[in-house]
């Protein structure tokens, strides 16, 4: 099947790892004499839930609903720009912060019209460059991920890029990854990195993805991007680990003058553990 939201991963689907589905119930099945524990310990899948007749026991049903509710709320939370600005400042990011909106006026439209989320609103004005790099913080499908992880990630990336000219940070509302193309082009950036809230999973509602595109301009294909998925400490990638990988990709991309599949093939040029 095709990917639900354009993320590139195994089979074109986001298969980022995540913690146990039973995180909230550690110890509940701690009895070593419970034979079902054999199944539970073997996988993060929701096995051996028990039954109430032909349905699920109430506790299991409510546990599932809580996970789904968190994921749904993460999608429909509005991006709080003031909160992100404050977090960037607190993390020591000294760059100016600008805001843009896509052509999708609201969440309902955004979810049904990905094409509008890839284009800047008509009145968008951005200062020209040139810059080596532009960072776009996009709400994507999880504004919650941006609230919680964007500032820490941006700070860790900037710490590792002495000597790079970096454009003002752009906060983008109702934005898809490809909105970084026109924004990066307008800012005169050699490379754009879009930090975007990923489609929430049932137990990972706050996962941030980083998409690198060399020579941003409208019309770039997804195959011309590189992706680091699941930035989400402490369960997923940490900020330092993600920044190390991203900076290695940035340096390789600048050297090659390209990104995407071509850059992936250069994997051996990355530092150990970076890929």
């Amino acid at each position, binding site marked *: 099947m095709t990917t639900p939201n354009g993320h590139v991963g195994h089979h074109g689907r986001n298969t980022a790892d995540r913690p146990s589905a039973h995180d909230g119930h550690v110890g509940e099945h701690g009895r070593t004499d419970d034979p079902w524990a*054999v199944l539970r310990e073997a*996988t993060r899948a929701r096995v051996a839930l028990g039954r109430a007749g032909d349905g699920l026991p109430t506790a299991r049903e409510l546990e599932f609903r809580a996970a789904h509710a968190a994921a749904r709320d993460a999608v429909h939370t509005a991006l709080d720009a003031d909160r992100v600005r404050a977090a960037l400042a607190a993390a020591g990011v000294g760059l100016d912060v600008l805001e843009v909106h896509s052509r999708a006026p609201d969440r309902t439209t955004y979810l049904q019209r990905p094409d509008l989320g890839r284009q800047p609103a008509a009145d968008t004005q951005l200062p020209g460059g040139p810059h080596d790099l532009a960072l776009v913080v996009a709400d994507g499908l999880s504004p919650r991920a941006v609230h919680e992880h964007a500032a820490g990630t941006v700070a860790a990336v900037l710490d590792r890029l002495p000597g790079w000219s970096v454009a003002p940070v752009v906060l983008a509302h109702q934005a898809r990854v490809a909105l970084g193309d026109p924004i990066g082009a307008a800012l005169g950036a050699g490379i754009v990195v879009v930090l975007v809230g990923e489609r929430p999973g049932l137990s990972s509602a706050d996962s941030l993805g980083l998409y690198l595109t060399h020579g941003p301009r409208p019309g770039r294909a997804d195959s011309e991007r590189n992706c680091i998925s699941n930035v989400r400490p402490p369960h997923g990638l940490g900020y330092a680990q993600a920044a190390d990988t991203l900076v290695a990709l940035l340096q390789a991309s600048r050297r090659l003058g390209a990104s995407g599949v071509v850059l992936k093939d250069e994997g051996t040029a990355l530092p150990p553990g970076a890929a």
Partner: protein
Amino acid sequence: MTVRRTTLGGHTHEFRSLTDVLAKATPARSGDVLAGVAAESQAQRVAAQHVLADVPLATFLTEQVVGYDEDDVTRLILDTHDGAAFTPVASLTVGEFRDWLLARAAERDEVAISALARGLTPEMVAAVSKLMRNADLVAVARRTRVVTGLRGTLGLPGRLASRLQPNHPTDDAVGVTASILDGLLHGAGDAVIGINPATDNPAQTIALLELVDAVISRYEIPTQSCVLAHVTTTLRALEAGAPVDLVFASVAGTQAGNRGFGITLDQLTEARAGALALGRGTVGDNVTYFETGQGSALSADAHHGVDGPVDQQTLECRAYAVARHFDPLLVNTVVGFIGPEYLYDGKQVIRAGLEDHFCGKLLGLPMGVDVCYTNHTDVDGDDTDVLTLLLGAAGCAFVIAVPGSDDVMLHYQSLSFTDVLTARSVLDLRPAPEFEAWLARMDLLDDAGRVRELTPDAPAARTLLAAAR
């Protein structure tokens, strides 16, 4: 192109082509808006349905939606059309065909309905479905019979099978096995034990095939396995002598869409021949498995026809023509997976699930449904309950089930094993007969034939749990 018009409520509506009529007659869904083909008002939609009702079925044999010369799916559809099977309805319009189907369904004339399959084209079936309400789709599908088999028999009346989907984020053998055992203990897996591999390479695919084959052999389970790798990977596994029961592919309704999936009809023919040659069937020789879903052509920018973009439901039906050509054991639409830009909410997903099931079955497919949703779609368990129970009433061959509704590899929600138990219980449906007999042999059924709620020290549970250790 023939312009068609009608007057409704004093207003004249004009449609520039058959493609336009089909699109505008389609019940509302986000994907058709995204493609720019949807009706612009409710009145225009109903006007298009009026026009469509008067189109003779035979028109679809001469007036193409996707061009014959440009598209190998169109060539497959028209070159394999069975004129004799078409005869009983050859003189009808689309509207009259709806009436004919409802009359045969009311008479419970399964033979008359089911015999049409090879005489119908996807466009005819899509057209009539657009005039039908949800209950019409259920009523006719219930009286359409498609029976297939490999080591179990699927599609018999009064049965609802399930695909046990034991996916794991790293294809870990122990993790996959745990999910398989959990499913078997819930009476799931009679349609297939089918894994989406996290990594699509021949070595991993072969390892998973051998893993499931070992479980099936150890407990002598009358079911089949599938690793849903790309067909080129399955071809490699076949060359290596792996135990391949079923060749899998995602298919689309246009040649460009199939190119997007990286498949050709020749590859599917070759892989099917390879699986057939293994002779692994006991009750039948259906050795292919296909997945589809409305919107897949649009998402690959492969939705264009002779008059611009084609609506997603008509293209979905054309994918069934591809599947039909390879005599599948199983076909399912993955109805809620693709996202809100194609099917926005529960109403649209339920409608699409019933359409896909009806259309696939009428075209002669052993049709199942992955009743599922992602977290950015406005769908929840109440919606999947409605669709599942309606599909059970409609005689759906199988549904997909994962532990606790949570696919920890693909990150979406499908049905849980208990959802299948509920549907069987509410609608008095039973597993596939060979699998049901196996469940009884394993002492997994109670006196009333229902899957027992086991305590861990029950002999059956102990036997199966031994495999996890």
